């Protein structure tokens, strides 16, 4: 998640750089039309950058942080599970012991030990069961609540993206309107470029391949 925000930022930075370089180019001094166009482009890029930054911030706030918080609940969950595991182990052990004693002949010390073992077993068993129940109750609860938890994040993420992109679209739409030659299709432009290039190649001063 973090990577994507970083990448977004990098992208807008590079876009701004394009326009900055263009602007700083001395070509602008000579050519008024070019200058206008580049200034407009520059403005657009800067706005895009600002928007991007905003978007990233928002995402940070509403998605990344909650994610982190949510994630921090997990260790305790793990811990609880582990403890349950341990309780289970103890329980089993004691159980085995009890059974062992039960199998032995019923002599005095054995009986005493058996009794003692049973005594020990009981609290352990109770503990284990308590833990188990607890986990059983709570884990589904936890799991289900994640839906509620993440829905808002998700929505905000999507919303942020939508807003950002629509904004961008508007900006660039304006930009293309502003500059002349709107509405040239791709093929047209390509053809034009090719024509110019071949014109250039026809010049004698240009090196032939």
């Amino acid at each position: 998640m973090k990577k994507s925000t970083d990448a977004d930022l990098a992208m807008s930075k590079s876009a701004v750089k394009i326009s900055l370089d263009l602007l700083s180019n001395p070509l602008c001094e000579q050519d008024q039309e070019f200058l206008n166009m580049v200034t407009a482009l520059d403005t657009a890029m800067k706005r895009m950058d600002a928007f991007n930054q905003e978007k990233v911030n928002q995402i940070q706030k509403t998605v990344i942080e909650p994610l982190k918080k949510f994630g921090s609940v997990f260790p305790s969950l793990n811990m609880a599970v582990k403890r349950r595991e341990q309780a289970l182990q103890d329980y089993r052990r004691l159980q085995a012991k009890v059974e062992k004693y039960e199998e032995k002949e019923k002599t005095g010390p054995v009986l005493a030990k058996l009794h003692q073992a049973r005594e020990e077993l009981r609290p352990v068993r109770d503990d284990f069961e308590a833990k188990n129940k607890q986990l059983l109750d709570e884990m589904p609860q936890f799991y289900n609540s994640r839906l509620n938890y993440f829905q808002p994040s998700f929505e905000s993420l999507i919303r942020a993206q939508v807003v950002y992109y629509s904004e961008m679209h508007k900006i660039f739409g304006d930009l293309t309107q502003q500059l002349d030659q709107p509405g040239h299709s791709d093929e047209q432009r390509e053809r034009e470029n090719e024509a110019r290039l071949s014109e250039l190649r026809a010049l004698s001063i240009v090196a032939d391949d």
Partner: protein
Amino acid sequence: MEPKEATGKENMGSKRKNLTFLRPRLYMLERRKTDTVVENNVSGDQSGTLRRSQSDRTEYNQKLQEKMTPQAGCSAAEALTQEEERQMKRMMAKRSKIIKELIQTEKDYLNDLQLCLKEVVQPLRNKQIDRLDVDGLFSNIESVHQISAKLLSLLEEATTDVEPTMQVIGEVFLQIKGPLEDIYKIYCYHHDEAHSVLESYEKEEELKQHLSHCIQSLKKIYVEEGKPNLLDMGSLMIKPIQRVMKYPLLLCELRNSTPPSHPDYRALEDAFAAVKDINVNINELKRRKDLVLKYKKNDEDESLKDKLSKLNIHSISKKSKRVTNHLKILTRGESQVKDNTFNREEKLFRCLEKTVKHCVKNISFCLQHIQDAMPLTLQSVTELQEISCNKDEEGNGYSESPSNAQNPCDDFAAHLQRLVLMPLSALLALFPGPQKLIQKRYDKLLDYNSYLQRSTGDESDLAKKEYEALNAQLVEELKVFNQAARKILLNCLRSFITLFRDLMLKAQRVYSIVMPVPLFASSISEIQNRVLEEFQNLNFVRDGCSTFIERKLSFEKKKPVQILPEMPRQTDTHRSKLLSTYSAEDLYQAKRKCNATQEYDINLLEGELVAVMEQKDPLGSTCRWLVDTGIVKGYVYSSFLKPYNPAKVQKVDAENRFCDDDFDNISLFVSSRPASDSVTGTPEGSISDSSSSLSGTCGKLEVNGTDNDSFQEVDEQIFYAVHAFQARSDHELSLQEYQRVHILRFCDLSGNKEWWLAEAQGQKGYVPAKYLGKMTYA
């Protein structure tokens, strides 16, 4: 046949098979109306002047003598004018001959062109052979034809119905010189290439067939007309060039044979100059092209060896001269030839190059970043989506759209590549060529500069010509280059912007699809905090919390200690029970905390009182003793125990009680989790796992409760007794080892800093400061 026209021609009519010779007489008659005397003589003489061309003088002398003899009375002036007139006549005769020649040749030329077009060019064109580039061979021969026709018609217009005295051929040429120059320039420019193209075609059998076929048909026609001097295609192609070179010659001759009084003289001079200029221009054009080609070819594919082989005295001297000139210009700022147009164009050129380079670089960076960013975003969205939706729900519908969205990014990349990056890179590749030429031009400039200072001569002329040729060529073409480059650049930028916009649109659409319909008005943080609070209510979180802290504090792995958590600590009641139950010598005290390691072992806290029941274990070893802690019975290693000293009971009691109090007081626990501030933890029993020193534990427990502040305040004034101290009076307070006390004042009533007022267990008293140590929490 008008008399005038005929006479005009026939005056010269030596080589031409022309008409009657009687006309001159008539002409002369008309002309010399004023001079009746000479008439007869002259007319008589004319008959013998048919084929004369160079023999003017002798005949002239003859005539003169004839004139002189019969008319001895004629004045010298008369004789002179006679001569002049004769000269005039001759000139006019010559003139008309030349004009005739001009028109005739033009006609022939036109005819040739016509035939060429009809028999060669058009058939070839119609055949549409693939590799035969008719335009490459003949370039603008149609235009040549046209202009020749025009010229001819103009000439005829100028000479028909116009008196020879009024014929102004020069005007014709002046009129037509503009288009003439342009058209012939183009043709000549392309002629060289056409020639080499023709040669390449000759090598290929098939094409050669076609060509010779056409030539054959053409030859046939020529033979019919009686002009079997057509050699081959090459000679056909070179005709226009020959023609245009002929014009100056013809005009020169015409001018020379035009008497100054003739109205045409002026015009002819101008026309001659103009036509000569045309030729010069064409030559210069050719020179420019040659130069450019030469230098273009020079720099391609040169290996070091080639370069070395080119080094010779001449080139070295040339180069060194240039370097010195360059330095001269830099340092002394000598007057030099400047061409502002060129400088401007060059500057523009360089700017463009830089711009294009930067554009390419930046745009490709941007593209890369976009390609990185968008898929990542999509991925994270998908993942989040998976978390937040139940798999059973319409997760299927959702999962489709994000994967589709990968495509706009790829599309964008492909389009960008095609529309923007490729043209720009191609453009960039075109820049180095002109660069080199600009460099060469500079060299030529230096050469020219160096010659400026010296006297003019052939070398300097050459240098000048070369420089100017190169300069002109560069200026012209750089203009075009710059313009085209600029257009490409602008185009590309526009495409880029449009693409960008489309990308945004697509992305927006993608996300709109995925977006769930209801947009919450409430803020997100509220919802999430609520959920988090819910979590905290969950039991295991609470437990988890404490477990978490345990982990933090204990740094030990949890051993399967089953008894300890259950075992409450020894309370006073237990101890008193022990004490009462067992005799003194059986009572032992745990020296330090011991953990149960084997079956039936018990855990002991330090200082706990135990009663030894047996000093051996079932296995018979005397290391382990069976002890009774009042709560449970179990085995403990004897080394852990030391005899219980009733004198220390109080201390122990106090200690224990202290701890009890402390334990009881503590209701809150250390919370290391930032999110939950209100987690409650129970310290029951689990605290005992921690540090070895009881007092240390006590200290820790006090930290960070809700009563944080008060506790902390108190904490700072809690000291513990390093040594036991026996109070000797009422003012003083007895201390047990490790007993904790609150310090109320750090000095006594008299200000003695060595005695501190301490409080412990509700009693106050003074204790020596040296016996106290500050509590440090582990």
